[in-house]
């Protein structure tokens, strides 16, 4: 039983970590602020979601598991808002505008 | 080599780096940033002291941990005061520098009347 749980955790966390890696590459390689932001927020939200999903298998109790989900939701919310704000600032400061 | 030793060496490097930044960076705000790195290194030494003092069922000696919490708060207070000084200085002069009429040890300090 614990073998299956561990396997699921490892799988989900590994895929999540891959998304983080992809986001990082995007951040470093993409040409302008908006596309970098795109790469980063997509990868972050998905990556963190998968990691939280993977960790849920390690939790036996309900409350800590809910806390984990709460962490993901808050990060999602903050990420979305901050991405919005950065994007607006980027459009406002765009040299052509 | 234990985790405490690894982070201890890391702390030694941070203290050196932070001190270098405080000493040579001409920009006051960056001196403050470097000072926070230096402080981080010093706090880490508390951390490894605490970790090496694990006993009585505690994974880490609580006394140095509490001292670090105090230290972090004091460091923030220092950052805030220094930042406010830098901002006021910029408002007054439009420049960010520690060199002014009052600088240096020479006798030419009577620039203002």
């Amino acid at each position, binding site marked *: 039983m614990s073998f299956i749980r561990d396997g699921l955790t490892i799988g989900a966390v590994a895929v999540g970590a891959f998304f983080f890696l992809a986001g990082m590459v995007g951040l470093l390689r993409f040409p302008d602020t908006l596309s970098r932001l795109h790469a980063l927020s997509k990868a972050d939200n998905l990556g963190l979601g998968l990691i939280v999903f993977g960790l849920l298998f390690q939790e036996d109790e309900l409350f800590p598991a809910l806390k984990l989900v709460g962490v993901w939701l808050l990060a999602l919310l903050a990420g979305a808002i901050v991405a919005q704000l950065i994007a607006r600032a980027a459009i406002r400061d765009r040299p052509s505008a | 080599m234990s985790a405490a030793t690894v982070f201890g060496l890391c702390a030694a490097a941070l*203290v050196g780096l932070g001190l270098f930044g*405080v000493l040579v960076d001409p920009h*006051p705000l960056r*001196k403050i940033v470097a*000072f926070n790195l*230096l*402080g981080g290194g*010093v706090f880490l*030494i*508390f951390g*490894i*002291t605490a970790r*090496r*003092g694990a006993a009585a069922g505690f994974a880490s000696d609580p*006394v*140095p941990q509490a*001292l670090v919490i*105090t*230290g972090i708060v*004091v460091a923030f*207070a*220092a950052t805030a*005061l*220094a930042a406010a*000084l*830098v901002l*006021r*200085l910029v408002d*007054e*002069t439009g420049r960010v*520098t*520690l*060199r*002014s*009429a*009052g*600088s*240096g*040890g*020479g*006798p030419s*300090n*009577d*620039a*203002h*009347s």
Partner: protein
Amino acid sequence: MPSAAIVPAMTTAGGYLLVFAVILPVAGVLLSVLLGGRYAERIAIVVMPFGLAIAVAITAGVWHSGNVLQYVVGAWEPPLGVAFRADGLSVAMVMTAALLVPAIGWFARGQFATPPATQSRAATTFWTLLLAVWAALNAVFLGADLFNLYVAIEFLTFAAVPLVSLDGRPDTLTAALRYLLFSLLGSVFYLLGTVLLYGAYGTLDILLLASRVRMDPTAWIALSLMTGGLLAKSALYPLHLWLPPAHAGAPAPASAVLSGLVVKAPFFLVLRLWFDVMPGVSDRTAAQLLGVLAATAVLFGSVLALRQARLKLLVAYSTVAQIGYLFLIVPLSANSQIGHPWGNSAWTGGMLQAVSHAFAKAAMFMAAGLVAEALGHDRIAGLAGIGRALPITMFAFALGGMSLMGLPPSGGFVAKAMLLTAAVGEGQWWWAVVVLVGGLLAGGYVFLVLARSLAAPEEPLTLRAPVPRSRQLLALAVALIAVLLGFAPLRPSQLLLIGRPEAAALGVQ
């Protein structure tokens, strides 16, 4: 051996006074913040007599019992808890602060008086921070726990730095920022040494640490780091660069606090470290090295003071020089041939220098402030005639200067004479030369000012503002204390020995 009775875990009779000495001014600070500018001055004035009374009570307690007062905070015994401890050394400094702070406060009423129903930024801040400085000084002088002392010196930093930039001019802002950076750097090195000692010996209490500390590399490195940090805070050459602009730029009452009292706190901690925490760790070379810095400070600071064109900068540079004298204690007593550092007259001489300089320098800054108020400037070249216009003020300046020079019968004379005696007695005559040359140079810059002020002005001197006689008399009173200290006996003082281990066994009278 009465000192053997000091147990770190015991609260002595009257020990609660030590906590009150710290908490009372803190309460004043809180009240000032709560009620705001209208009341800050009144709160400070009300707190002062009580603070003085507490200091007198502590002094009486130590003197009568002939032993340390101690308070274990929260009844949690060290090493887990924190203690406050008052020995002879603490008492001397606590008493100095308790006399000077009210005197400076009274003096400052002329400058920072708050008209009813209005608030002013500088006045509110000054009164709040004056009490904060007092609380911090008491915490430093009475602290017996290395980390508690760290909090105390940071407390002092945050109280002292804004005093420098009260007028908000760009050059004082720069001076304040530099003071802050030097001071923070000093504190962080002190903190680093503290944690190294804790990691090696498992306690922060000074007495416990003294009984456990060994001559090993950790102790040695910790001592160097902490000493280096404290030297930056006390502006010993070559870490003095921040001091002159900061002390000269602050308003006169603030300068008096900073130069007279605040720089003494890190010096005090250096003494604690070298003589109480790690008496065996310091070796002769390190002590001589510190002596070289001290001697350079005396000579270099005095020469620069001579070359200043402004009165307040001259007084500030003379602080750099006078701090040098303080640190001569270390080479002269750390490896005393008598066997115990405090058996040597350098110990008493150095402490007397700390105390008499506090009064002398405060008086000189007060006088310089009054001159600047009266003339609207403090250029030394433009002082002609001020001696006749403000005779009391210039007399106060001269008396303070007399103590700096070391002319009899001032406190500075006795202090320097004792340092000389010790230098000769220890066979380290080269420090005696420094003391003498420093005295001559001090004579030079004091006479420079006096001669200028007594000269006949080219055109009749018009004072920009009237200077109240009460403020002049206050400066004079403070200067007189510095002179009266000269009637202290020319031998190791019994009071300063209270709480020194083995002092009783030594049989010094």
